[in-house]
């Protein structure tokens, strides 16, 4: 248990350039903090996020990947978030079938103005991953 408490996860937080990142900007404007080990990774639109960009970090050393795009109806490209939801469902299905802990991937909408929700997501995900423990794939050299 103590091991897990000390463990500092490496987390990738994938954000669309509009709402997700906007949430981050709002959080910053309000001086809200989120854990430093959560690294934002900005993509134009979550609808343009290749599945491989979710899978690769999980093999190469991340303990979790969170994804935030606009709320339904707010996507700046109309339907990018719906497309992203399908891709996330696909990746989760694959991880689930292979027993590779699909719970290491989170998908949650965050609006531009929702600095609080952004920070909460980063923090909650970080705690959630801490509870899960380190991603066993990241130490395997034969991947």
């Amino acid at each position: 248990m103590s091991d897990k408490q000390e463990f500092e996860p490496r987390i990738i937080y994938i954000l669309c350039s509009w709402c997700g990142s906007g949430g981050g900007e709002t959080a910053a404007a309000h001086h809200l903090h989120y854990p430093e080990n959560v690294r934002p990774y900005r993509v134009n639109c979550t609808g343009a996020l290749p599945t491989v960009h979710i899978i690769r970090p999980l093999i190469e050393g991340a303990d979790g990947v969170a994804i935030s795009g606009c709320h339904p109806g707010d996507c700046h490209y109309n339907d990018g978030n719906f497309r992203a939801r399908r891709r996330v469902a696909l990746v989760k299905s694959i991880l689930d079938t292979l027993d590779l802990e699909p719970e290491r991937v989170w998908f949650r909408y965050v609006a531009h103005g929702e600095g609080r929700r952004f920070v909460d997501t980063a923090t909650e995900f970080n705690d959630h991953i801490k509870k899960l423990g380190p991603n066993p794939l990241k130490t395997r050299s034969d991947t």
Partner: protein
Amino acid sequence: MNNKGAILPAEDGVESAVIGWLKEALSKKVFDALLIPVEVPAGDSFAYLLLRNPALLENASPLPPVMPVQGAKAISRLTMRGNGSKRVAAIVRPCEARAAIELTKLEQAHLDNLWLITVDCPGVLPLSDYLEDPVAGAARFAEASQRWDRAPMRPVCQICHHFSMPASDLHIGTLGSAEGTVFVIPGSPKGERVMENLGMPLDAALDDWAARVKEMEEVQRERRRQAHTDLKAGIAGPDGLLDVFSSCINCHNCQRVCPVCYCRQCYFESAALKLPPENYLARAGRKGALRFPPDTLLFHIGRASHMVLSCVSCGTCEDACPMSIPVAQVFSLLADRAQETFGYVAGRSLEDPLPLVAYEMDELHQVEQPYVETYHGLQIADCEQEVQDA
């Protein structure tokens, strides 16, 4: 699917009946050309031949014992740049027809002038088993398929539940037919037109065929479920999975022969993954070692994420793997689960949109992480603490 078909006499066996029927279709100019497996000159395998000369049908086989090239690949090569002007009948296995349908939706094949013709499929032998002794292999195949015994067939053929008519234009039903006959069943208006042009009235009831197919399908479904449960127990988790792929040599042949992996340049062979030496050394440093070439697991899981919604469980990948890794079994499991998530069946119809092209607004809420504002208070307390500390 039509509930009426025609009866074709087949006293000399299914193969010669089908060949005879195709010859007639060629001579009546119902088709301009056929795409059909033909024995290669050395007699030790089969290859798809596009032919218009009926004499070339002498060594053709609508049900060869092996599937060296996935038929959808042949169809795609012919029609990837558009519909041809010749009417071509392609005689393929059901899984090949299903892959051709996926490729059409992926805009890698055009079927306007191509008729997919399938036969109730007993499976095919693993290519390597057959090549050890082609003559004995052919005999083994003939004997086993006579009895619908799938034991000598490829592992995915043993658990195939889409062995009969998928969405082909014409199907030869060998199940449930009276001795010395087979059914010819149109599956599309295009197929019906051919029947008409051949003067084959649709006057035979198909109940016996349908009942036998259904019965066998249920047996196969159960086998599939069982096999997938067993497989999953062996490959689950990082340990299981890395064991399965421990001898993978990264040749990517599974991808190259896969009908639905159509990319001219695969992402996993592209410049995207070719990195400066410092990158490899850093990754090795993190893990103590880096398997080289790197990205074996990324290739397999990533490939699955690209194409598994269109995977037709055809087994071609497994046949072509030099390390005998059960790739097709793993992919068939992933495919079933993923396709289920979207209510999609690869190759079922040309109309169902590809799952990653379409979406519904109200769906898949299980992947959305609910926000319960639990972290609100916690954060405020933290911030206040920080302000105080400062």
